[in-house]
């Protein structure tokens, strides 16, 4: 079988779109008609077949295009990928995790063969067939983290754990929602979360940190986060604000359906075995309003969520400029009937 990879762009002419099957598997993040900020962490275990949780590391029809977009971002700005010297071992941990999971979930596309520390990795969608020595940096074309994350969808933050805290000491971050690895590198958990509003309730963060530092090998966890993006841009970094910031003023009643995208991040948290670090893969899913409202339940519910969102949160998520236009457009699709519980479409 295998996945049919789309040819599409996330910049300039923005040809990105989701196939009908991919619309149905979109990780819609609202399980009820309102949204409240919460540390909604749960075990990262396999979910239903056909969902984005069918495998613990998801590969989908956007894989090849996303990897091409990443290469473009890196060519312009190599600082999107950084690893402090003590994090190389964690990079090997991540390489092992991603190769194992991708090969396990998608054997028709990826193959990993190991003979002791002699490894062979075949990535058919990207046309890669490399043999290397696990642990020997001189045998891979980039550092181990960069090598594998140029071949894996989503951003990756690798955290060192020490002094009861987590430190953002390595990462590959090219598809982020308005934050910057170059700014956060070397910071600890409290430092890099400092800008989040409504969380002056510091207790949430203390509890979240305690949970994360206790993540155990073999027991990953996950949470969903969401925001909205105008045009299907993967790269909405602060460095490129001048490119995507002005997009927000371009939303009109006529183009809402095509321009406004719900952006959902599936964040998972894994303990790395050799380095004892933690990795957060942050996998980004985009869907335009026209696609989303093909599922009537999602249309009704999203209308209610966006309409009732507290002002500060709407500001924080950067929705202010086009919120009214969006709510007006969505309201036409909300007949007021109840929505069924749970995330999935009806």
């Amino acid at each position, binding site marked *: 079988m295998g996945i049919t990879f789309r040819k599409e762009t996330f910049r300039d002419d923005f040809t990105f779109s989701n196939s009908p099957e991919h619309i149905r598997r979109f990780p819609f993040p609202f399980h009820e008609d309102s949204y409240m900020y919460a540390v909604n962490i749960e075990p990262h275990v396999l979910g239903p077949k056909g969902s984005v949780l069918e495998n613990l590391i998801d590969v989908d029809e956007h894989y090849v295009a996303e990897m091409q977009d990443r290469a473009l971002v890196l060519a312009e700005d190599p600082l999107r990928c950084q690893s402090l010297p*003590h*994090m190389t071992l964690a990079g090997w941990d991540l390489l092992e995790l991603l190769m194992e999971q991708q090969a396990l979930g998608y054997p028709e596309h990826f193959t990993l063969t190991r003979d002791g520390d002699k490894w062979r990795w075949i990535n058919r969608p990207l046309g890669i067939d490399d043999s290397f020595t696990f642990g020997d940096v001189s045998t891979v074309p980039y550092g181990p983290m960069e090598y594998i994350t140029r071949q894996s969808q989503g951003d990756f933050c690798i955290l060192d754990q020490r002094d009861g805290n987590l430190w953002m000491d390595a990462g590959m971050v090219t598809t982020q929602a308005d934050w910057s690895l170059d700014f956060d590198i070397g910071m600890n958990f409290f430092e890099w979360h400092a800008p989040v509003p409504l969380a002056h309730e510091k207790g949430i963060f203390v509890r979240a940190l305690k949970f994360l530092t206790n993540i155990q090998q073999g027991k990953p966890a996950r949470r969903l986060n969401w925001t909205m993006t105008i045009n299907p841009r993967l790269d909405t970094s602060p460095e490129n604000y001048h490119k995507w910031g002005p997009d927000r003023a371009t939303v009109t009643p006529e183009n809402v359906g095509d321009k406004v995208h719900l952006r959902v991040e599936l964040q998972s948290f894994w303990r790395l075995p050799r380095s*004892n670090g933690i990795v957060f893969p942050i996998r980004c899913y985009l869907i335009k309003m026209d696609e989303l409202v093909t599922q009537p339940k999602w249309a009704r519910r999203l209308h209610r969520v966006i309409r009732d969102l507290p002002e500060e949160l709407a500001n924080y998520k950067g929705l202010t400029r086009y919120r009214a236009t969006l709510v007006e457009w969505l309201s036409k699709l909300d007949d007021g009937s109840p929505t069924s519980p749970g995330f999935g479409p009806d």
Partner: protein
Amino acid sequence: MSTGTTKLDVVVSDVVPVNELVTRFHFRRRDGQLLPTFSGGAHVVVEMRDGERTRLNPYSLMGSPLDTREYTISVRRDDAGRGGSLFMHRHVRRGHEMVISYPVNLFSLDLRARKHLMLAGGIGITPFMAQTAQLAADGGNFELHYTCRTASLGTYADLLRQRYERRVRLYHDDRDERIELDRLLSSQPLGTHLYVCGPSGMIGWVCDRAAALGWPAETVHFEHFAAPQPGAPFDVTLAVSGKTIRVGEQQSLLEAIEAAGVDPPYLCRGGVCGQCETNVIAHDGNFIHNDHWLSEEEHRSCKKIMPCVSRFEGRSLVLER
């Protein structure tokens, strides 16, 4: 989220007496697969089915993290303890099927260190066995100082000397050899991290001297599994589950809560990880806090307890569980 860690089904593949107090146990996976990779300093929690009761003890993995065909632990027999180590020594034989946890590391190397200075006392040598193997394989810079009562109780001392020669320094109590701690700590290059594992007196001494000599706290790492201490039985009411239970003399509070069918979180069962922290709702009596997790202030406040190692003496105790 469920508690503890993922479990591994293992079989005891070898039991090797090391000296008059210490025995080494080897585990392999029952399904013949490799065991999970781990990092130096990690421990596993070993489940012992001792008749009616289940004992859960943490032991450091002492093999090389580069070889995960088997895990090895070393158990020091504690005749005055609560019986876990005696059970291992008396009842566990080759071929025994057991359940252990995935590795957990609460004593990991700081990989930024330019040099790793390790101080071990007695059976506290075990986490360093794995850490030195890990560092040696990678050209890491370390120095190990190991104190033991007598040469014959210097568990693995010969092996370590043979493997690492002058990077290992031995001290024998019966020969009145002492670590010259102040000199040692004052002569380290910048960027050195200090690791200590051994009896609590030794850990306290090393940490105090390091602080006094200006070592930043984040460069000093220690591991001390306080085994739960036996003590007078006491009664506890669990408010959430609505049960009243008795904690026996040889039982820890955590074990008593588990025996009552409540499934509280834990990781280390040694008072260091913080996972089992529980709120005290009401009490009339005194706490015997044996943990290394709560601050002194929290100990004094009597609002929290770590049930894996701490006890209570008095009339009544109500916990939020």
